[in-house]
């Protein structure tokens, strides 16, 4: 199985490296509810990794564990070969992990530009006194980061709305702005929780294209949750399948598609 090789090149010529993030025997409970049961999987450098499963399977919980928002009761998160201690989410962000949310979590009172600029916080170094004076270094930093943000804005084709308050945008654009904010951090690992939920076909196509471009142009490793099977099969290099908090499948889209347990639990129920 090609996916097990140390490093390989995909059919479309993208390089997939060694393991970047390893989830080891993760168990997460909320009181009596076991959201994740002893799950292990890994994410490799440069790949697009999908997490799928029916509603309530524990997919979002898994992303929340990766981004440090939940602390699992059992198991280890191993990032770049090192076991990650319990860590506040902002520290995780500083390690180069960015994400979007299933229910859009933008800063509604701020403009698109300011929202995306907040994405660059982990790159901001000048102190508050410099900023208060707005001199030399603080201003240079602002301009430099603005340039970076404008690149992202161009990339995602949201130039026309950059000064618009986010609260006024339609749903599809909000999703795109949220992606822009995550990308602005120049993350090593990008977590996307249902980036295409609630979108029409055209918007989904746009979003798929952006995800592929991000992976291709910036070499960003991506883990995404998605319900649309067509999208998942098209985009992802490998897929983890969850059901009731357990992992029931893991492999290339083709392998997963032909896995009987997955078909029973998920694909069969959905359609086909």
């Amino acid at each position: 199985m090609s996916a097990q090789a140390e490093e390989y090149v995909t059919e479309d010529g993208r390089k997939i490296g060694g393991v970047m993030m390893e989830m080891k025997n993760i168990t997460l409970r909320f009181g009596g509810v076991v959201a994740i049961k002893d799950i292990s999987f890994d994410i490799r450098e440069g790949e697009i990794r999908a997490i799928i499963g029916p509603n309530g399977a524990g997919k979002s919980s898994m992303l929340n564990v990766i981004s440090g928002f939940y602390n699992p009761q059992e198991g280890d998160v191993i990032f770049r070969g090192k076991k990650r201690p319990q860590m506040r989410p902002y520290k995780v962000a500083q390690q180069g992990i960015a994400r979007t949310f299933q229910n859009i979590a933008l800063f509604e009172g701020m403009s698109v530009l300011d929202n995306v600029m907040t994405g660059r916080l982990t790159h901001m170094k000048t102190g508050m006194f410099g900023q208060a004076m707005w001199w030399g270094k603080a201003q240079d930093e602002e301009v430099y980061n603005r340039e970076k943000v404008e690149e992202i804005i161009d990339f995602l084709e949201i130039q026309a709305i950059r000064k618009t308050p986010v609260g006024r945008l339609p749903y599809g654009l909000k999703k795109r702005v949220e992606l822009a904010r995550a990308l602005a951090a120049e993350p090593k690992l990008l977590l996307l929780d249902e980036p295409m939920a609630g979108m029409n076909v055209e918007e989904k196509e746009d979003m798929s294209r952006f995800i592929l471009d991000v992976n291709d142009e910036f070499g960003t490793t991506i883990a995404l949750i998605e319900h649309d099977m067509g999208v998942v099969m098209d985009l992802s290099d490998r897929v983890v399948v969850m059901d009731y908090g357990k992992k029931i499948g893991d492999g290339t889209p083709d392998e997963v598609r032909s896995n009987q347990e997955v078909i029973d639990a998920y694909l069969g129920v959905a359609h086909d």
Partner: protein
Amino acid sequence: MLYREAGDFKTTYVEDGQTFPIKFDRIAYYILLAVAFGVVPFIINDYWANAVLVPFLIYAVAAIGLNILVGYAGQVSLGTGGFMAVGAYACYKLMTSFPEVSILIHVVLAGVITAAVGVLFGLPSLRIKGFYLAVATLAAQFFLVWLFNKVPWFYNYSASGQISAPERTVFGIEVTGANTDAWAKYLVCLIFVTACAWLARNLTRGTTGRTWMAIRDMDIAAEIIGVNPLKAKLTAFAVSSFFVGIAGALFFAVYLGSVEVGEVFGINKSFLVLFMIIIGGLGSIFGSFAGAAFMVLMPVLLKNILVGGLGWPTDIAAHFELVIVGGLIVVFLILEPHGLAQLWRVAKEKLRLWPFPH
């Protein structure tokens, strides 16, 4: 000259990020500054200074401070009066302990001390939000007033329990004490307002401001994109209290000259400044000025019209004022939560497109 954006292209991000992106606004702003510094001091009299301009300027500083905390960082505070008292008493202790040091430095130091106290009382904000935080700051308000009443060291064991500002000069000109000229009071306050507004504007348009607003709009998402909530909230309390402390110091030393803490810095003061930013506009420096101007001018106007013009008794006019303020708060909270600043913005947007609205 037409009020236009067209033809005024921004070619750098520095230009795009400036405070007044429209040339007309910029010019208007410079003219305003020039008049405020170059003309007003020569024509000001005691009535205008004491009834309107000096309180307006000082309240503007306090409102900027509170707006940073409430409007930008989304942390409710009802402790403004108490923090102004900290600034006032810090300034008093500094003035009397180090008479040789400039009063200007004392005022700034009073701000720094208030910032430290603000951080201390801001600590609960790490655990509690909204209503509960408001109650916690309310407790701070009452505690601080009680403290300054109770501990004689703060008022240098004076018999009256009040604090009185000794006479101090800047470049040989008296700025505190009974014999201060109106223009000197005005100018000192104007300098502080200008500096505070400039600092606040710089902080709010940059990284720090975005961090605060991120915490305000959605604290969970803010933390996940890398905002340290502890740092964001405590810096908001610190910067806010710094400005409020400066306002308190000026209110005591320059404006009133002597202060009885419960009377001047009581809970009413907290509400007054809160009303200023609600009416003026939450999350707007301009709104802080607009709200301060409104709340200072309205009683003066009403008094002139109702008492002076229509011959109403003073107490009825005063009650009428409360009714108007109350009504306006409700109106603004419901119809225009962004206050006068937003009305102004909308008016300007209309003007920019005039006469072709599409």
